[in-house]
């Protein structure tokens, strides 16, 4: 266990050293790495979660199924898989605001949100969001939650993956699912930001 913090050049060289050995040992290939990267750069991202939210806003029966069993409801839309094998959607209301975290590492619902942003995985957010969530939301994300609204922080300590169903904004009555999905931000499904204004 080394106490030395490596430079970016040292990390890159060490990763390449391990990569080259693991390619020779039959554990990795560059083609498989490229495919994995392509999936999480271009295919699996928060646009998938946004489509689920838009459907829930448009279809009350789907919303009931989503809140009852998010894994099964997402599968109806062909969404699911790695790091979202067991998902729970938590619903924001006029009196409840939800926010997700993983204080012990970086757990996050990949099938609906893609890979987490670096701040979600870093020590600053993970340490403070369970202790002073209102202050973090206000000071770090510019997002005010009034004291009358209960703040519920979901710490993903098991393989259950929580994510937030934000409230449908006012003035969106005429919008179809595609237009609604465009309003749903990644941050609104983590619980650190609002949905976009219509």
């Amino acid at each position, binding site marked *: *266990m*080394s*106490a030395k913090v*490596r430079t*970016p*050049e*040292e*990390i*890159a*060289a060490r*990763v*390449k050293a*391990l990569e*080259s*050995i*693991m*390619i*020779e*040992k039959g*554990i*990795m*290939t560059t*083609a498989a*790495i490229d*495919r*994995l*990267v392509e*999936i*999480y*750069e271009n295919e699996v991202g928060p646009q998938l979660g946004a489509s689920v939210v838009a459907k829930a806003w448009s279809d009350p029966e789907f919303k009931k199924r989503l809140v009852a069993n998010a894994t099964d409801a997402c599968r109806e839309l062909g969404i*699911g*898989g*790695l790091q979202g094998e*067991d998902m*729970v959607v938590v619903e924001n209301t006029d009196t409840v605001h939800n926010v997700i975290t993983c204080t*012990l*590492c970086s757990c996050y619902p990949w099938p609906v949100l893609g*890979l987490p942003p*670096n701040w979600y995985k*870093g020590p*600053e957010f993970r*340490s*403070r969001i*369970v*202790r*002073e*969530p*209102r*202050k973090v939301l206000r000071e*770090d994300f510019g997002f005010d939650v009034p*004291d009358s*609204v209960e*703040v*519920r*922080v*979901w*710490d993903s*300590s*098991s393989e*259950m993956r929580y994510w937030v169903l934000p409230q449908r904004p006012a003035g969106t009555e005429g919008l179809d699912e595609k237009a609604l999905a465009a309003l749903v931000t990644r941050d609104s499904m983590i619980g650190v930001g609002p949905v976009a204004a219509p």
Partner: protein
Amino acid sequence: MNGVHDLGGTDGLGPVPVPESEPVFRAEWEKAAFAMFSMPFRAGFFGVDMFRHGIEKMHPAVYLLSPYYEHWMHAAEHYGVAKGVLDEDEIEKRTQYFLENPDAPLPEREDPDLLAFVDWAVQNGVPAGRPSDKVAKFAVGDRVTVSNDVPYGHTRKARYISGRTGVIELAHGTMIYPDSAGNGGDDAPEHVYTVKFTSTELWGAEAAEPNGVVYFDVWEPYITHATSQESAA
């Protein structure tokens, strides 16, 4: 283990660094390091619980200061060496080579099965649910207290809920038990529950923000029925 990775409630780490935007991968090496979970997993280096424990065993200062995906590289190296598949001297030698020749090519090899595995794993995932005939000792609505035990190995019992009392909100059935699987043991499935703790119970009336709760998932061995009616709502 009582490590620095267990960050919930730690003070003094500063504001959350939130950039306007960022790429999924910030450097080429992050892409290969990201693959050092799924592919070594397939090769039998670790399950997800052991993988996490490998990261927890990093030097705490390096853990806090290094870029995220270096943690993943560390876990792959740790278990690869422990299994005898990777050799420390060989890693050092090649690291030196790539430091001096950063653009040197990687070995070439093809493996259609590995390529197919990537898509399969992303789509199907690796569920942690495991059947068990164990009868659940707790039910939704029960008031429970988290044990004060501080194990040396891997656990998902965070410091900040240790000894605290809350109410079971959800019951999820039986899943792999990290305190066994993360330490090289078998799956040993246990019932998993989501417990609701008030912010006052966690931080005390003086420090707690108003009108807040934290939900935390526990495995059955972490909890007992609460004996006092005084704490928690």
